[in-house]
């Protein structure tokens, strides 16, 4: 995959040996090679998430661009103890995408798209394991194992920023039922992540 190979004489091994946190620190200090490597490392995830939420290539690109712009502005404030760099960047992308979606008018939800989130990534990049780790695999399995109603509620909230009330009104389900589904889904996913978690990120 051409986009996964960094240009320049440094070669692949040096760049990919640098952890996400160190790359982000490079971003914070304005190192141009760190900025380029950071974009390469995360662009498919950032654009992928924006596209999943917006379904529109140019809107998704705008969001992805703005996500990286915010990443280099806010890099100095990143706290590795609160979560991974990947999650941090994607949260930025998600919030921007949701804001964009709201401004353009709600995009009709398509239940058929949700299963797409369950399939293993058909084109994992060389960084897949480096960024995702085993947590993501366990989470994907746990999401697949959820009852469809719980999975739908969770995905609508997590990816599309819907509140419980919005889901209840759009789907014609009692609010209490939606809340119960969201809670049950989240608690199951949390258990899936609890295995082998010491809460620390290694450089």
């Amino acid at each position, binding site marked *: 995959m051409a*986009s996964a190979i960094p240009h320049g004489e440094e070669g692949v091994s*040096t760049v990919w040996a*640098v*952890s996400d*946190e*160190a790359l*982000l*620190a*490079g971003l*914070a*200090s*304005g*190192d*141009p*090679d*760190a*900025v380029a490597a950071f*974009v390469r490392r995360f662009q*498919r995830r950032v*654009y*992928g*998430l924006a596209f*999943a939420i917006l379904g529109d290539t140019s809107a998704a*690109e705008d969001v992805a*661009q703005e996500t*990286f*712009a915010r990443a280099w502005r806010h890099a*100095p*404030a*990143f*706290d*590795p*103890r*609160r*979560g*991974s760099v*990947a*999650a941090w960047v*994607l*949260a930025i992308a*998600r919030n921007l995408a949701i804001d964009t979606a709201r401004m353009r008018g709600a995009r009709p939800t398509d239940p058929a798209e949700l299963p797409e*989130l369950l*399939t293993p*990534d058909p084109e*994992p990049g060389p960084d897949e394991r480096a960024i995702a780790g085993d947590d993501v695999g366990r*989470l994907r399995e746990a*999401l697949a194992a959820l009852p469809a109603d719980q999975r739908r509620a969770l995905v609508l*909230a*997590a*990816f599309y920023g*819907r509140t*419980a009330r919005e889901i209840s009104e759009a789907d014609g389900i009692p609010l209490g039922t939606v*809340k119960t589904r*969201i*809670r049950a889904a*989240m*608690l199951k*996913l*949390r258990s899936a992540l609890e295995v082998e978690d010491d809460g620390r990120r290694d*450089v």
Partner: protein
Amino acid sequence: MTDGATCEEVRELAPELALGATSGEERARALAHLSRCAECRRVVDDLARVTDEVLLLAPQREPPPGFEGRVLSRWRAQRPARGRRRAIAAAVAAALVAAGGAWGGTLAATKLDRQIGGYYREILGRVNGKYFSAAPLRTEGDRQVGSVFMYEGKPSWIFVVVRKGAVPGMREVVLVPRRGAAVHLATMHIGREGATWGTQISSGVLGTLAAVRLVDRGGGTMLEAVVRDRS
């Protein structure tokens, strides 16, 4: 006085809070409680981590051709001036290899960007530490004028980068632990172009920090970087 939510109510609402799926009113009541209750905060933070990780499940997708170039052009258009970039990059590389003792003062960067960048990457690639973080250094008016970088490993180090635009003058670098008295670490001089300073530091100290401050001779705090609580 508005009655705030109870722990029980907040714990039940926690999954929705973590997802942002609550109503405005629910959120406001919960936040009032969370501002006072560390245990409930821990519960919500824990679930917020689940939300974060769930986002990683979205399918990856190749951006349109030229995307990377457009992002980098945008970055180049707003990057700081050349001279300061060299000074910062040089400071990063130098602080990482500081083998012992403190060094101070404004670096006169003479190396090319590429050399420094490559050296820096190499050092980071070899580094075998546990924890690397940065905290923004802000004025009392909350304007960011620099950063404090901290690396915990063998050895641990800390360094302070102040940008051009900060008030020049002599400053004392003070470490403020969460418990106990503040410690004066060194004196640095902020020039018109800013300044950099760094030192190797004993393992374990970084974990006890609440903040790093640059204090003027009168003892007034000019700049502060708040270090996130690790507990």
